[in-house]
């Protein structure tokens, strides 16, 4: 009944979920963990404030990921962060331009921005042009984003989610128009580009924790403490695996393949 080769993965997934759920439950009961500061996420308000003072719009893109493949988690995390950014721009009465690449992400992003403006009691400020479907094609999307940054002279550019080769085009494009740039990505090949070209970079798991971090919701914060416990579990597995392999045992390798 169970798929061979996936039993260990299933047990690991269950361990992860139990640990995360345990800490969520603890947070529900009032034991809320303290989160370390993430400068890139803290800088979002600064960037939006600066744009507001300069009378320039904020550019936001949740990347080129979609909701059905391995890029889904990064895209959902980016949409989470979009909610917070849109709420801030609504509160500051600052314009936001959201560039979308995946068609399925477009209605979600539009609803997020609309809801955020409504929540800030400035629903009439929301314009459908704020959320723009650009193109699913990689470089057509990149050139559209560069065009928006250049024509509309954005004051801040926030790029979160799943990115490929277009990452540097956008990051460098935002720097060239003098915008504060904040980027977040969980792909190893793109992180160096963002680190080199952006003012703030959110790396790997920080992006995925972004929604929980910005929400200030104690229950979501609890899930982050659960993640730390799972990381400890991963480190223990690594050490045991290294010791076992060094000692000449392949038991651990076989266990992982089960």
């Amino acid at each position, binding site marked *: 009944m169970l798929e061979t080769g*996936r039993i260990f993965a299933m047990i690991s997934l269950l361990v992860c979920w139990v640990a995360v759920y345990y800490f*969520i439950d603890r947070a529900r009961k009032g034991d809320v963990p303290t989160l370390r500061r993430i400068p890139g996420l803290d800088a979002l308000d600064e960037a939006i404030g600066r744009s507001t003072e300069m009378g320039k719009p904020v550019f936001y893109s949740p990347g080129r990921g979609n909701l059905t493949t391995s890029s889904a988690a990064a895209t959902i995390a980016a949409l989470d962060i979009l909610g917070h950014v*849109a709420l801030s721009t609504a509160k500051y009465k600052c314009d936001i331009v959201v560039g979308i690449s995946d068609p399925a992400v477009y209605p979600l992003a539009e609803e997020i921005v609309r809801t955020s403006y409504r929540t800030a009691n400035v629903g009439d400020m929301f314009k459908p042009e704020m959320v*723009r479907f650009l193109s699913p094609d990689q470089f057509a999307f990149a050139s559209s984003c560069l*065009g928006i940054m250049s024509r509309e002279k954005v004051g801040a550019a926030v790029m979160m989610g799943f990115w490929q080769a277009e990452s540097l085009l956008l990051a460098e494009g935002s720097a060239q128009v003098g915008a504060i740039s904040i980027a977040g990505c969980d792909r190893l090949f793109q*992180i160096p580009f963002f680190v080199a070209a952006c003012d703030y970079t959110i790396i790997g798991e920080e992006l995925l924790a972004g929604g929980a971090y910005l929400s200030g919701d104690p229950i979501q914060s609890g899930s982050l403490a659960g993640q730390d416990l799972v*990381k400890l579990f991963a480190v223990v597995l690594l050490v045991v695996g290294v010791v076992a392999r060094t000692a000449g045992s392949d038991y651990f390798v076989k266990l992982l393949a089960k």
Partner: protein
Amino acid sequence: MRRSLPLTITSFVGFWIVFDYFVKIDFVRTWTVNFTNWVIIVAAFALGLGAVNLLRIHGKRVTERRPGWMESSVLLVALVYMTVTGIFLGTSSEAFLFAFTNLQQPLSAAMFSLLVFFIASASFRAFRARSIEAAVLLISGVILMLGRAPIGEVIWTKFPDIADWIMQVPNLAGNRGIMIGAAIGIVSVAMRVLLGIDRGYMGQE
């Protein structure tokens, strides 16, 4: 109801697909395939919505003669041309391929080629040794460039070995740390979304 129904559907389908990944049950597999096919249908409708958004924004710009209306009109003409030729003549028709190979491909290649200049300007800014971290980045970057370029080996034969060591030891260790952290983060995001704890993707309320 407006939020609870989508959340219930998300949780049900999400847990179903996770369950299907680990077990071999025909009934479960059949419905997973059905759910996946439905995604394609929903995505097709979403693409239609995206096209409407493009028409609305650029159509308004053209009719109101706002700045950039010329570019918007080019976009609208291209959108209509590719849609009409693609649907009525097919994506392997001469009319469709003409625009694809003579416009779309060269324009994409031109955008891609811009990367080389952007890499140069980004690395110029990143490699200014303003802090210890930036200095480490500068030194390791220079060593890597010398290790990978033939001239490096001419200057000192050890440069390629040092570059390999940087890539295979500190760089790989950092990469794996980020990968493990991100993988666990993905599992945690999945759990928060499937249990309806994380609803940020549905908008702030």
